[in-house]
């Protein structure tokens, strides 16, 4: 079984300030990790993914995340946020089960960028 914990339900931050959204996971097998963004009344858009290789992953819109296997974390960061980054962010973990992938999402973190 796998699970994802997003430690902050809401994160307010001033425009142009840095932000970190935290994500921890648990799994008994190797996993792949993802961050998705969801704007109001829309579906999910992939921000970035970790499949293998370098533990520092760069995504769209200036976001990056670092995979830390020993701490089972995959925190999302951006050095300077913009008003348009206001949205809900979901961390997800994917693991193989019987040859097919199963994706588990966290409950989400609402990022509120304050002008």
């Amino acid at each position, binding site marked *: 079984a796998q699970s994802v914990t997003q430690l902050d339900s809401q994160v307010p931050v001033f425009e142009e300030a840095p932000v970190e959204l935290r994500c921890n996971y648990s799994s008994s097998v190797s996993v792949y990790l993802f961050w998705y963004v969801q704007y109001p009344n829309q579906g999910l858009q992939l921000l970035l993914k970790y499949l293998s290789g370098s533990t520092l992953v760069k995504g769209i819109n200036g976001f990056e995340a670092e995979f830390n296997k020993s701490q089972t974390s995959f925190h999302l960061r951006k050095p300077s946020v913009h008003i348009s980054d206001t949205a809900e962010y979901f961390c997800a973990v994917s693991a193989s089960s019987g040859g*097919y992938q199963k994706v588990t999402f966290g409950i989400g973190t609402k990022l509120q960028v304050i002008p």
Partner: protein
Amino acid sequence: DAGVTQSPTHLIKTRGQQVTLRCSPKSGHDTVSWYQQALGQGPQFIFQYYEEEERQRGNFPDRFSGHQFPNYSSELNVNALLLGDSALYLCASSGRLSGAYNEQFFGPGTRLTVL
């Protein structure tokens, strides 16, 4: 490339009714997964279809059933609707044969309201 498409965008039903939601995967994708996203929650995995068979299932009752067609499109059926079935239903596709196995692309969702 139209990406993942879902229909309808919105739907209102009453308790006890049945509903069918539809999904067309991204071009080149052969695997479809369905998720339920209740208000304020992360997406919850319902089931996944590949080669017209249900390959994995989340913790959802048998009232939730699905189908995949030879052209890879899929339907989600929910019988005997309950108020608690009100949610955004997301479809995601991935390419098991294309090598993009672990990356899912999401549609915009169908908003189901049960009165």
